[in-house]
């Protein structure tokens, strides 16, 4: 029996969590002598009221959609993939290799190939922990986080020793060829008179992320494999009894998860920097966990949560630009939202459930 209606679970709980986080953030801002209302206005103004602001919000959101979906898919198989960061790092390497060493005539072909490269590299990186989990019982949380460090060190080595152009200071590859540069929102939506999304990094991969949301939804709820993944996640023993192989589902779910995390690199590497840099993931792999938790591991929820976090990141940048709020405190504000929506979920849910139960008893 449901303790509370579905809409309350999906809407009310995150909303109340958000409000609580906002109140605490406001207190923090007051604490350092700034005006929280002005700060909030500035965030909304900078992130949502200008097309360039949206360009940044959606750019960050694209990253979070991919990594959020990655965590969500693994979560349906009751696995906690916290290796999105490492899988995205390797995905970036996949993108760079595909774009640097094969001459592409057009960005659309390059994007297709880079998608395959990113997904393959991300999936390979997720495969090893998946195999260890399925066959050896090594806990996926431990192995995936260890693989984040290995990925970072590996990329370091590759960039510094193999891919860095001669004489360059930055540990980064050279620029990808012109033909592989993705169309940005500015290229797509600007007309001759009005320039939209000026300078914003949002690009065509945003639509890829939206498609990925749809595909993941179809996969999980409309295919046999998705059914098996969810069944395995709900009860391993029941799934086994029904003839579902735990090894197969563990590995496949993690491969999909790793591929999605790897695809995040399309946005940052091919879309934004147009070269592979050391710090291309910028923590999006970890934010993906919060996005998936907040989105209830549902693709549509992930979509909304990713946009919210995109707003927080872009709004945070605006705060850093125009106010006296130090960047450390902006991280605190972002962390408060993650804490309330992700980690302290039950703090809101349990009282709310009691309220709904009481209401129902009255009706009954």
């Amino acid at each position: 029996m449901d303790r509370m209606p579905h809409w309350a679970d999906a809407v009310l709980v995150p909303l109340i969590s958000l409000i609580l986080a906002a109140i605490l953030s406001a207190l923090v801002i007051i604490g350092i002598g700034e005006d929280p209302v002005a700060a909030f206005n500035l965030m909304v103004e900078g992130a949502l009221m200008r097309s360039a602001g949206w360009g940044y919000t959606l750019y960050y959101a694209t990253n979070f959609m991919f990594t959020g979906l990655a965590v969500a898919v693994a979560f349906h198989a009751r696995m906690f993939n916290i290796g999105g960061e490492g899988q995205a790092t390797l995905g970036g390497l996949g993108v760079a290799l595909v774009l640097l060493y094969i001459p592409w005539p057009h960005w659309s072909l390059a994007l297709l190939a880079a998608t395959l490269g990113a997904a393959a590299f991300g999936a390979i990186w997720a495969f090893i922990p998946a195999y260890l989990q399925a066959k050896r019982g090594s806990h996926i949380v431990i192995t995936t986080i260890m693989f984040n460090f290995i990925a970072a060190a590996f990329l370091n080595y590759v960039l510094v020793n193999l891919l860095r152009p001669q004489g360059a200071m930055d540990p980064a590859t050279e620029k990808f060829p012109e033909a592989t540069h993705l169309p940005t929102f500015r290229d797509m939506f600007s007309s001759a008179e009005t320039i939209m999304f000026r300078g914003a990094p949002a690009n065509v991969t945003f639509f890829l992320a939206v498609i990925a949301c749809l595909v993941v939804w179809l996969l999980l709820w409309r295919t046999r494999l998705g059914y098996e993944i969810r069944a395995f996640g709900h009860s391993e023993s029941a799934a086994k009894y029904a003839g579902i192989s735990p090894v197969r589902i563990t590995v496949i779910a993690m491969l999909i998860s790793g591929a999605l995390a790897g695809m995040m690199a399309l946005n940052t590497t091919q879309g934004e920097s147009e070269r592979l840099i050391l710090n291309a993931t910028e923590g999006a792999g970890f934010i993906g966990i919060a996005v998936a938790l907040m989105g209830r591991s549902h693709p549509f929820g992930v979509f909304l949560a990713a946009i919210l976090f995109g707003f927080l990141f872009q709004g945070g940048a605006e705060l850093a630009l125009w106010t006296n709020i130090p960047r450390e405190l902006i991280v605190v504000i972002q962390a408060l939202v993650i804490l309330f929506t992700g980690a302290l979920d039950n703090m809101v849910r349990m009282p709310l459930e009691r309220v709904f139960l009481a209401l129902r008893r009255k009706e009954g």
Partner: protein
Amino acid sequence: MTFMHKVLATTAAMALSAGAALAEPALIFDLGGKFDKSFNEAAFAGAQRWAEETGKSFREIELQSEAQREQALRRFAENGNNPIVMTGFAFGNVLSEVAPDYPETKFAIIDMVVDEPNVRSVVFNEHEGSYLVGMMAAMASDSGTVGFIGGMDIPLIRKFACGYAQGAKAVNGDITVLSNMTGTTPAAWNDPVKGSELTKAQISQGADVIYAAAGGTGVGVLQTAADEGILSVGVDSNQNYMHPGKVLTSMLKRVDNAVYDAMTQGEALETGINVMGVGNGGIDYALDEHNEALVGEAMKTAVDEAKGKIASGELTVHDYTSDDSCPDLNF
């Protein structure tokens, strides 16, 4: 700090209420953050000095992500901030794309050359200053072995090492110059523990003067050198005070002056390549009450003579980055 806070708070409030376009300068710090005891902090000190002297204010941002490089540049430019100063070579790529979009705005980039008509590129002849401190290290050394500890292994730091080795060899042709880099990633700029380990390793090979060009990592080098009773050489800012009597000198790279100059010139900022070297006071060695006793008259005379020769062009120090090689040191 309190003064700065007030200044910044007022400007923030003004921007919040009106969004007014003020022609105030802006300063963008690289990902390392502004209080790195080294490069970024020197830039901040220069901006602060300008603000205190003129009573005007400036905008600043410490970046949080790579995507914000372009964002910060564009937003400041659109807000009418002028000039916009940024620290670090990592801005080079982005600035060359952004600068043409804002021909009315002047940009200043430190440690990198960006060839655009509205950009002032400030580069330093670090090899010249390193040459001077290399001479001093060789003169102060009893063991005939001096050391160099770099931060991240990039051409810029090899330029430091190469100048240092040339200076040391100019004094004593038989001297041994040890050279180690802390790492190959940006983390190498802030790893004092590893700096300390490298210092011990060089001491065990006989080094008795060690030059650190490693950002925050250098703090560990200077500390260990002082603990072990040998001399060290600081970098960028004057670090003599950190261990009085134990730091032979510091190679001064006047990033603060570069920022101060850019802000003083304001909207009339002179563009083009601005080379700061020994000749124009952009590069120097530090002499103050903390190291007077270490630097004798003879050493001072010799170094000042070399300084004069470099300034007049009589003596050229080889720049590693000009041909990616160094006559006196192998990497």
